[in-house]
């Protein structure tokens, strides 16, 4: 007899604790009530308890509060006290609840004999940890760790300590979120820190990439954008967006400037030149522009960018004459072969205006930020794997088989690794190729903390605590280990590691860490009080300054060339614009039905990949909505339906990332195409960062057509609402 949802709801209102049985009578009249054996201290039946923790869906480190009713997490909201997102949260963050209750989560550790076969056999936790310990011990310096950017700070530290103690190579922290938001290029262009700006009181913003729907900190910027647009009468902020395909930021911009792909930074340079030559914005700004602006011919640059010189002059003037202008780098330009230079070219506009990115906070001793590795570092590890130097590979919070271009060779390199261990809670593409999976608790059930990646002038340590008891505690597989405890347990058997990882469990580690923190915004005289407040308020941060400090950037003039394309123009006539869609992000949203089924704001598309194409280009090629297109780059090809998109350059097609999973649960599996298959493993000019945004493609019709799963009514698309 199945339990209907309504019965579940009714009974959980009544304060039932665990399983619910419904009588088999025709009218289901008898419901059994199961009270707690031992109730949680704070729980009142029928009233919610809210726990503060940290979002694990993106690396941003947004503070969240989770509504828990009768032991079940039922809603995630932003933590109002959290200084990064101030009570607000994006679609991805709210949908994280479905990760906790995902039907395809592993109940306990599994092993498979042949990687890739997906024939997993369950294993007792103790046995799994013992096997892992054995392997790690045997591997010695041949241990390698690959982790994603959502990894908790305490694990980052434990991974690093472990690697150091066993002489293993330093762990790599790299995932698709980092890749497609060019964390590496942005940081190396901005002195090692991700540039974050305060736009609350800006009157003009020039942005070179989407910062409201994706980017390193969409919620932070969302809150800021509200203030930016809501300033007193006459001071409403003006936003100009320079991008070849209109993102949601482009949609809300006052002006969308469709610069030719790879030329965005040239436009920035030309505007700096114009400010210098025309003396816009007063002597001081003009003088700074004179020092920093590249020597370029404005008319020639305008032509190369496919813009009118006059328009550039107007924009340059507006920027120079604005009281508080800000230029936000990022987006596709940062992911081109000259991403670092392109980012610097944008920063020069800021330097002319006299604004710098917000200063990074001082990180207290004992706290470990999750610093992203560069693509080159990731590749170096893959090379080690290929050379057979890696015996045991631990993959945590990342999914490199899905996330890396084929050319990076990660999948092939896995064959050379004796033991591959994944910690994914769901069998994802990498876990499918692992020998063993020790499923980590989801972030809603686990301990940890994250140092937020945004530099907001102060350090924000966002705490993570279990809001519910671990959902899967199967008798057959024994009490579940968190990955932190797995590491600490293994370390006990390795003489070199035991000194470096002496803690009994991860909570002891975290308590010690928090106890040693200086007094923050919430004070606390003794370590226990500090620990309690750290959990209660959702983290540790210093009291807020009235005005966050900006950092000064040392800049030299940069003369950027247009990004070099991967692929010849005659063979691959179109630019490929890859972006992370609002709902699925870099693909970690793909396993959650709320995100798969909620319409993409620009296209209202659900459940699919699609290719955005300009109406004129589509018309010329005879392409209509829903026609399945074959998109081919020098590196591979994918198929996806066309979506005729009015706000994209005619020489560009755009494809969102996130779909095309072969595993990762029933909602993601075999759905759409993975745009990463079109990318190469080429690095940029510095040799450090992945060049992902300068690939060219050709598009062909396959002859097939489907009905698009869109929410909008395209038949009525000609009727406009006018405000």
């Amino acid at each position: 007899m199945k339990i209907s949802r309504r019965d579940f709801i009714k009974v959980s209102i009544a304060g039932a604790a665990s399983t619910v049985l419904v009588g088999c009578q025709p009218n289901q009249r008898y419901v059994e009530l199961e009270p707690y054996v031992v109730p949680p201290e704070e729980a009142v039946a029928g009233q919610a308890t809210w726990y503060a923790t940290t979002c694990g869906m993106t690396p941003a480190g947004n503070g969240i509060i989770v509504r828990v009713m009768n032991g079940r997490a039922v809603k995630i909201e932003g933590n109002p006290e959290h200084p990064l997102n101030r009570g607000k949260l994006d679609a991805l963050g709210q949908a994280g609840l479905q990760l906790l209750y995902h039907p395809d989560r592993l109940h306990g550790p599994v092993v498979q004999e042949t990687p890739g076969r997906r024939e997993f056999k369950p294993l007792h936790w103790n046995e799994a940890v013992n096997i892992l310990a054995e392997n790690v011990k045997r591997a010695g310096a041949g241990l390698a760790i690959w982790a994603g950017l959502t990894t908790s700070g305490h694990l980052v530290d434990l991974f690093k300590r472990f690697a150091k103690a066993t002489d293993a190579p330093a762990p790599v922290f790299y995932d698709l979120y980092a890749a497609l938001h060019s964390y590496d290029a942005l940081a190396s262009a901005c002195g090692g820190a991700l540039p974050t700006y305060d736009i609350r009181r800006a009157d003009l913003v020039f942005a070179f990439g989407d910062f409201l729907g994706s980017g390193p900190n969409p919620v932070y910027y969302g809150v800021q954008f509200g203030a930016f647009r809501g300033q007193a009468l006459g001071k409403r902020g003006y936003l100009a967006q320079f991008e070849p395909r209109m993102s949601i930021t482009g949609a809300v911009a006052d002006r969308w400037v469709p610069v030719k792909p790879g030329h965005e930074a040239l436009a920035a340079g030309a505007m700096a030149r114009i400010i210098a030559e025309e003396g816009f914005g007063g002597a001081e700004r003009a003088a700074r522009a004179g020092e920093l602006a590249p020597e370029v011919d404005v008319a020639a640059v305008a032509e190369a960018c496919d813009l009118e010189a006059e328009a550039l002059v107007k924009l340059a003037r507006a920027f120079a004459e604005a009281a508080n202008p800000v230029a936000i780098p990022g987006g596709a330009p940062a992911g081109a072969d000259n991403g670092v230079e392109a980012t610097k070219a944008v920063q020069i506009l800021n330097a002319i205006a006299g604004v710098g990115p917000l200063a990074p906070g001082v990180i207290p001793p004992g706290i470990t930020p999750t610093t992203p590795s560069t693509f080159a570092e990731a590749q170096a590890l893959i090379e080690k794997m290929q050379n057979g130097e890696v015996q045991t590979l631990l993959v945590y919070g990342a999914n490199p088989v899905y996330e890396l271009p084929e050319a990076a060779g990660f999948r092939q390199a896995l064959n050379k690794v004796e033991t591959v261990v994944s910690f994914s809670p769901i069998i994802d593409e990498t876990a499918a190729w692992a020998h063993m999976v020790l499923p980590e608790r989801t972030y809603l059930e686990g301990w940890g903390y994250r140092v937020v990646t945004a530099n907001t002038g102060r350090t924000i340590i966002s705490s993570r605590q279990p809001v519910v008891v671990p959902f899967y505690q199967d008798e057959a597989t024994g009490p579940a280990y968190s990955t932190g405890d797995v590491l600490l347990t293994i370390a006990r058997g390795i003489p070199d590691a035991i000194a470096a990882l002496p803690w009994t469990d991860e909570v002891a580690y975290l308590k010690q860490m928090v106890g040693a923190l200086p007094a923050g915004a919430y004070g606390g005289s003794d370590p226990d009080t500090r620990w309690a407040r750290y959990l209660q308020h959702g983290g540790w941060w210093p009291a807020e300054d009235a005005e966050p400090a900006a950092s000064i950037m040392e800049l030299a003039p940069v003369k950027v060339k247009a990004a070099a394309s991967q692929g010849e123009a005659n063979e691959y006539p179109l630019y490929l614009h890859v972006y992370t869609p609002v709902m699925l992000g870099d693909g970690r949203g793909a396993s959650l039905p709320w995100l798969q089924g909620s319409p993409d704001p620009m296209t209202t598309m659900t459940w699919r990949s699609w290719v955005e194409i300009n109406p004129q280009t589509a018309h010329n090629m005879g392409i209509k909505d829903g026609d399945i297109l074959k998109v081919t780059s020098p590196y591979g090809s994918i198929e996806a339906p066309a979506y005729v998109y009015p706000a994209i350059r005619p020489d560009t097609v755009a494809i969102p990332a996130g779909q095309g999973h072969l595993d990762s649960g029933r909602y993601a599996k075999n759905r759409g195409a993975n745009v990463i298959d079109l990318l190469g493993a080429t690095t940029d000019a510095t040799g450090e960062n992945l060049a992902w945004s300068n690939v060219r493609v050709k598009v062909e019709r396959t002859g097939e057509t489907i009905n698009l799963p869109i929410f909008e009514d395209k038949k009525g698309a000609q009727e406009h609402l006018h405000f």
Partner: protein
Amino acid sequence: MSRPTRVWITVIGLVVLLVFIGPFIFGVLASVPNYEQPIVEFSHKRHVQNAGIDCLYCHSGATRSPVSGIPSVEKCMGCHEHVLSGEAPIVKLQEYWENGEPISWTRVYQLPRYVHYPHHVHVSAGLNCETCHGNVGEMDIVTPAQIPNMGWCIRCHQGEENAVELMDCLNCHY
């Protein structure tokens, strides 16, 4: 009509009767209330009259939550660790406690699933538990004092000053 035919008709008639009417009879029998609890000896009367325990001691949500709540096994054991700890029903309770198992109580008051009823608002408006639940202190095994259907709600509310407001559908149905 020959005799065997008549027998056949009777047999078929009985089968039809059994097949079509049987489930109805079964349904009626099956839905006859039976409020037997997993610990059959549990008596509200003893707790209220002999021990003098207030309703709110066990159903503590009633003043602060929409749900009055059922006490946890831990709460039962809070007293019964020492009180009557040797008696058979208490041994049964102790077994639940030692096995870490929740007790599956049979629900006595069951509202339809599309109704939201707040205990705390009614209690804070001055209603006694007995008003709706009857004199539980007199009952060994609790049975419903009334069937909590909408007519019963309305009968109470219609006399009130803000009756129209209180009888609005959206008050309880969402």
